[in-house]
């Protein structure tokens, strides 16, 4: 019972450090795109949503799962597209 939890905690703590190292010292120009890009990544919860909507029946879990998939996809698609829109503008020279 403690096995997977402990592994999960190790992964969690190490990933937080990786996150800090990777994003450290981001230039101010990128604050908004970084925030919206990171925000899109939090849509990863869609993986969990997929687990809960795997049968064809009309059940509470499927309806909730479908809603969760839709919400997570808004987060993912909206987040990546809007970040790309912003970054495209930074690429142009005035």
């Amino acid at each position, binding site marked *: 019972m403690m096995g997977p939890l402990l592994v999960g905690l190790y992964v969690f703590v190490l990933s937080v450090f990786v996150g800090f190292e990777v994003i450290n010292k981001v230039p101010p120009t990128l604050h908004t795109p970084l925030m919206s890009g990171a925000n899109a990544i939090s849509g990863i919860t869609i*993986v969990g949503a997929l687990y809960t909507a795997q049968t064809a029946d009309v059940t509470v879990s499927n309806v909730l799962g479908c809603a969760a998939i839709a*919400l997570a996809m808004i987060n993912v698609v909206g987040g990546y597209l809007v970040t790309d829109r912003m970054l495209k503008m930074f690429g142009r020279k005035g």
Partner: protein
Amino acid sequence: MSDTRAVVVALIYLLSATLFVFGLKRLARVRTARQGNTISAVAMLLAVVGTLVELNLVSDYRWIVAGILVGSAVGAILAVRVPMTSMPEMVAILNGFGGAASALVAISIYWVDVAEPGKAGTLASIMGGSQAVTAFLSVLIGGVTFSGSVVAYAKLNGSLPGRPILLPGRHVLNVALLVLSMAMGLFFAYGIGDPVRGAAMMWGLLAASLVLGVLLVIPIGGADMPVVVSLLNSYSGLAACATGFVIGNNLLIISGAMVGAAGIILTRIMCDAMNRSLPSVVMGGFGGDSSAAATAGSQEYTSTRSAGAEEAAMVLEAARKVVVVPGYGLAVAQAQHAVRELGDLLKKRGVEVLYAIHPVAGRMPGHMNVLLAEADIPYELLWEMEKINPEFRDTDAVIVLGANDVVNPAAMTKKDSPIYGMPILEVHHAKTVFVVKRSLGAGYAGIKNELFEQPNTMMVFGDAKKVLQELIGELKQLSS
């Protein structure tokens, strides 16, 4: 699931996690940012593909396809339509959707594992203790993220007033609600053996978390929303992490933790730039508390001078060096293209034009950079606060466009000011300062701006875009 497929799925997840790390790393550098975002999107696609492979034999895809189609369409429409000036509220609301999704996943898993099979026994005995606890944390954090983001969205787009809304005894109320949610969660995980009552408790927990999210954000003033949005961004990552613990998926834990870290880094940058501590932001009330009310008595301005566009144009024409200071007013007036036109016109006349960016100008970190980039102003001309402050002494004219608190010299001189100690753009050192503003109203901190009374300051009243267009017209006349 066959062993081979399990290994393939695990490797897909590993590749996805690796690409998320690379993507974020590249996203944090100007040259590679766009590529980084694409890499991260590919990682997300791999994650979804990996999960579908994992589900393969047992699945009927109709609910999944429906959810993906609806969500993608709504997301794409939002992303294409949103104007750059509304970017802060867009990020806030997308973030809320992510949090809501995590909360719904946890609730849905309860139905899959417990309610629908009609199993008796506590959640902890059915799912395992750590899964049961993280399931309730996922609902709690996800719910707070959702309703908090909705309030932040409403404050940013003006459907709720930006000033802090202070309920009596709110700190006690919040703590009580948090303790209640925790108790409900633990009872739900360990105390309830009956699926029907468990389900009721799950909805109760969701309701409590939604109320808590509203109460936490509503007392925080509009100027502090950048901090709130980055903090909520961090929460949505943690909610995804909690979901990862529930379903035992390391990919969710890894990417959620990195989002959490990114949110914390941005939150800290924002707090430093405003010289505020995170606890003081989170406690709320800034801009409407007693200290600001006390200074309200001395709000009236006694000796401001105002100028028209013609006068301003003549000064600008004679200048060698002009610095533009954009603020939230620029975003409201959608004046980014007019700024560019004025800059081009001045440049043609041999005037050096720079743009001074305060770290918290606008309603989101980096908001001004995005707007000016939209108008094709090269980012080499956008100077950060530390770099441009020494330049002001040698600057002939400054144009402050809808910025207020970030150019208030009281932050340097008046110890009793609520913004004392906040780093500011030292525009008051310039020879002439034009402040383009609709009225003498206070900024978000709710205090008087001493800059407006300085002898070298001239107020140009009006909407930023209209004033800029008048200036452009006058400059064109002067040259003909």
